[in-house]
Structure formats: structure tokens, C-alpha cells
């Protein structure tokens, strides 16, 4: 029964998967470049400008450098797990993109192609599940390094991610009460017709934003790799491309969480103050992708701006913020949202 697979559909999805994965890798690659340029601008420097015009080939040069570095494997507890760590970090970073709606349908020679790999009805929970698995890459790598500092970094990462996941989940519950659906596509369609969710859930968005900084291990939450306390944190023992994988997965995570925030709170591929349905479907879809990418770039810039502005938290401040400020705020937000919905439904 299931063997009768629609091969055209299979091919379509396969192409979409390849395009999405390579696009997110490419974007992450140039995010590393953008980070150095933004840092340079914020610190009144020029930034990388030697490789290629405007230094545009810099990411390639960085990648080459990592590939040619000597690979040092320490006297470890497990070689398999030592390799598993960065691989898992990369895998979980790439997996999230499966449920994101990148745009509306495209008319491809008479065939309507959905610009989303899988429109599952538990979309947002899938994202949450993959995010919660992301910590394994760091923890396994840290433990397999057989190094105190790595282990401390890994444990910090794990406790940080678990703590902030709670507030993130509760802020999402308030959002889900408003939208009444778990499908990301459905949420975008709702926002196209009504208001963006950030208008309805400003506090929820703020909590979600702070938590996604923490989940991506970005400054001010980059305690797992705090170099003045832990040398290099969980990737102290890593060199060559394995280190590259860890660093790179952070940039992919940053890109993906920007996409998620744009989709959940800022209308996804919706063009503000404009009715897309008057355009031809293909043009509308392409403009939608452009709109989504503009929002994503704005978020990525915010990530960098914060990184080069705010210093790192102390560990007790991190835990205090997570457990005593964000979680009560998220709980209050959830109760208030529920109360308002109940009041207006009467």
C-alpha cells in the first residue's frame, strides 16, 4: 500500500532537502564572514579584506585552513564518541530546517511545489525536540575529550540549555494558545490574514528571543566556551575540521533560530502591509522568500550586535536569570494570555 510512492513527490522533496541544507550551509558560511565584518565595524576596524574582493573569499580560506590543520586526537576515553560529538552537533543543527515553510507554493511547469519539506501537524514540537537533542553533541564531545575543562564546559552547556528550554517552552505555550495550531505553515497563514504574533505576544517574543540566545550558546550566554575560565570549553581538545564543525554548527543554529523567530513572531514569508494574493503565485512566492530572508538577516545582525556589545554573564547570574526571572515571567505570560482568551470568548 505504501510502496506506491509518488516518485515525482519523492524527487521534489529530495531536491528541496538538498537545496535547503546547502542554502543553510552557505548562509552559515557567510554569516561567519558577516560576523567578522560587523565586529570590525562596531570596533572601528576594517575587518578581513585580503582574500578576494572586499575579503569575500575569507570563509573559503578559513575552511581551507581548518581542513589542512593537523588533527590531534588526545588520549581519550572513546575514539568513536570523540568523532560522534561534532557530527551530532552538525546533524541536529541541519535537521531543524525540515519543518520550516520557506515560502508559498511555486508553480513549477504546472506542478504546484510546496516550499516546505514536511508540513507535519506537530511542526513546532519537532523543532523543540531537535533543539533539546542539540546538547548531546556538546556533552558527548566534552566527555570523550577526557579533559576537566572540556567536561566543565559540557556540563555548563547542558545545564544552561535545559534551564532555558523550560522558559522557551512555556513562552511557546502562550503562543500556541493564540494560534491554536502546532503547524508552522498554518501559523504563517494566520499571520498573513491577521496581525503578526509579536503584536499579540510581545512578552512571549522577548522571552523566546533571550532563550534562543542561550540555546545557541551566543554571547552573553557563551559560558560553555568561556576561554578565560575554561580555556576553550567543550572544544578545548578539538582541532582541524572537528573544531570547525562545532564552530560552524553554532552559526547554522543561529541562522535556523532566526528563521524560527521570523516564522513564529514576524509573519514568516508574509510581506507586511501588502496583500500577496494579487500577484502571480510564482512572483508572490519569490517575494515571500525575499521577505523571510530580510527578516532573518535582521535577526542575525541582532545576534552579532548583542555579541559585540554585551559582556558575558557570570554563571550564577545566568542561572538566576533563567530560573528566577524568565520562568516566572513566562508563567505569568501564559496565565495572562489564557485569561484574555477566556474573557473574549465569552
Amino acid at each position, binding site marked *: 500500500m505504501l510502496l506506491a510512492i509518488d516518485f515525482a513527490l519523492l524527487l521534489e522533496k529530495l531536491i528541496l532537502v538538498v537545496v535547503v541544507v546547502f542554502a543553510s550551509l552557505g548562509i552559515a558560511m557567510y554569516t561567519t564572514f558577516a560576523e567578522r565584518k560587523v565586529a570590525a565595524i562596531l570596533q572601528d576596524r576594517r575587518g578581513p579584506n585580503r582574500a578576494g574582493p572586499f575579503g569575500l573569499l575569507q570563509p573559503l580560506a578559513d575552511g581551507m585552513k581548518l581542513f589542512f590543520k593537523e588533527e590531534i586526537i588526545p588520549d581519550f576515553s572513546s575514539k568513536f564518541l570523540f568523532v560522534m560529538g561534532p557530527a551530532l552537533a552538525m546533524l541536529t543543527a541541519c535537521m531543524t530546517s525540515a519543518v520550516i515553510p520557506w515560502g508559498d507554493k511555486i508553480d513549477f511547469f504546472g506542478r504546484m511545489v510546496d516550499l516546505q519539506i514536511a508540513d507535519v501537524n506537530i511542526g513546532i514540537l519537532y523543532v*523543540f525536540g531537535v533543539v533539546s537533542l542539540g546538547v548531546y553533541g556538546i556533552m558527548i564531545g566534552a566527555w570523550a575529550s577526557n579533559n576537566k575543562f572540556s567536561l566543565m564546559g559540557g556540563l555548563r552547556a547542558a545545564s544552561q540549555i535545559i534551564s532555558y528550554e523550560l522558559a522557551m517552552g512555556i513562552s511557546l505555550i502562550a503562543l500556541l494558545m493564540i494560534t491554536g495550531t502546532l503547524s508552522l505553515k498554518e501559523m504563517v497563514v494566520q499571520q498573513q490574514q491577521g496581525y503578526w504574533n509579536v503584536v499579540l505576544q510581545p512578552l512571549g517574543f522577548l522571552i523566546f528571543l533571550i532563550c534562543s540566545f542561550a540555546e545557541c550558546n551566543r554571547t552573553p550566554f557563551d559560558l560553555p566556551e568561556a576561554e578565560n575560565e575554561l580555556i576553550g570549553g567543550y572544544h578545548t581538545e578539538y582541532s582541524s575540521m572537528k573544531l570547525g564543525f562545532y564552530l560552524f554548527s553554532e552559526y547554522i543554529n543561529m541562522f535556523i533560530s532566526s528563521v524560527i523567530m521570523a516564522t513564529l513572531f514576524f509573519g514568516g514569508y508574509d510581506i507586511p502591509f501588502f496583500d500577496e494574493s494579487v500577484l502571480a503565485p510564482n512572483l508572490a512566492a519569490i517575494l515571500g522568500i525575499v521577505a523571510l530572508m530580510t527578516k532573518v538577516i535582521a535577526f542575525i545582525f541582532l545576534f552579532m550586535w548583542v555579541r559585540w556589545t554585551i559582556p558575558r554573564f557570570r554563571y550564577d547570574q545566568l542561572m538566576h536569570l533563567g530560573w528566577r526571572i524568565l520562568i516566572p515571567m513566562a508563567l505569568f505570560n501564559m496565565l495572562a494570555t489564557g485569561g484574555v482568551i477566556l474573557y473574549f470568548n465569552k
Partner: protein
Amino acid sequence: MSIIQIIFLLLSVMAVGSALMMITSKNPVNSVLWLIVVFFAISGHYILLNAQFLAIVNIIVYAGAIMVLFLFVVMLMNLNAETEPVKNRRLQLIGITSGGALMLIIVSAISKIDVEQLVQINAGDSGLIKVLGMNLFKNYVLPFEISSVLFLSAMIGAVVIGKKEEIENKK
């Protein structure tokens, strides 16, 4: 063999195989990692039964949160094969006997079940989030609320145990 049967067999082999690996591996960290693989296989079974919500919640709660805590504890206590205490023969024998007896009971109970009635592959909607929510908050609201109070009391208990020394010091 249909494709569902093939997937079912693969998942079952994965589940049972990694469960065996979990029990037999000497290193506690490896045991925890194998247990995570077991949870993934079970989530795969849930998806075969069209219970996507259950599958993803299983991954979020068990693989994503509880197993991280397990790993946390194992890593912090720095358990490894050398320091693992070896149980004596008598305890091992008792363990094997009781485990075998439990398996006998489960096998005999399962063999009585009419499989056709029990398993509805990729059909039925009892695992979908809407049906599940309706069931929990309409038909089973009292047990659901009582169990959540139970969780709350367990949480408070954990905090009290964790803070015990601090409170005694203050006195």
C-alpha cells in the same frame, strides 16, 4: 513483506539490540547513550501507530531532558568500567531469576492478545494531539489533575531534600 513490516522489523531490532547493549556495556556513559537509541526506536514505533504527538513528546521528555540529566550525573560522578563495583554471584543469580520470571509473565500475557484487534497500523487517531487533549481534559480530567498535583509535591520534595543542609545550618 510490506514496507511497514520492514520498518517495524528494523525498529524492533534496533530497540531490542540497543536495549541489550545498554545492559551489557561496562561503561555507564555508553549505557546511557544506548538507552537514548532505545527511546528513538520506540518513538519510531509510535509514528508507525500514527501517534506523532506521543512520539515527539517521548523524544523531548525522555531523550531530550531525562537522559541529559542521567548523562549529567554519570559524568559528574565519573563512573567508569574500572571503578564499577562487581556484584557477587548470589545477587547476579537472584537478578537473573526475577528478570526471567517477569519476562515469562509478560510473554504469556502478550501471547493471549488478539493481535488483529490490538494493532492498528497507521490508522486510528487516538495519538493525535487534538483527540489526546479532548480525552485528557474531558474524560480523564480528575486523574490528570491529581497526577499533576503528585508531580508538584514530588518537585517540592526534591527542593526540600536539596535544601536540607542549608536549612539546618541556618538553625
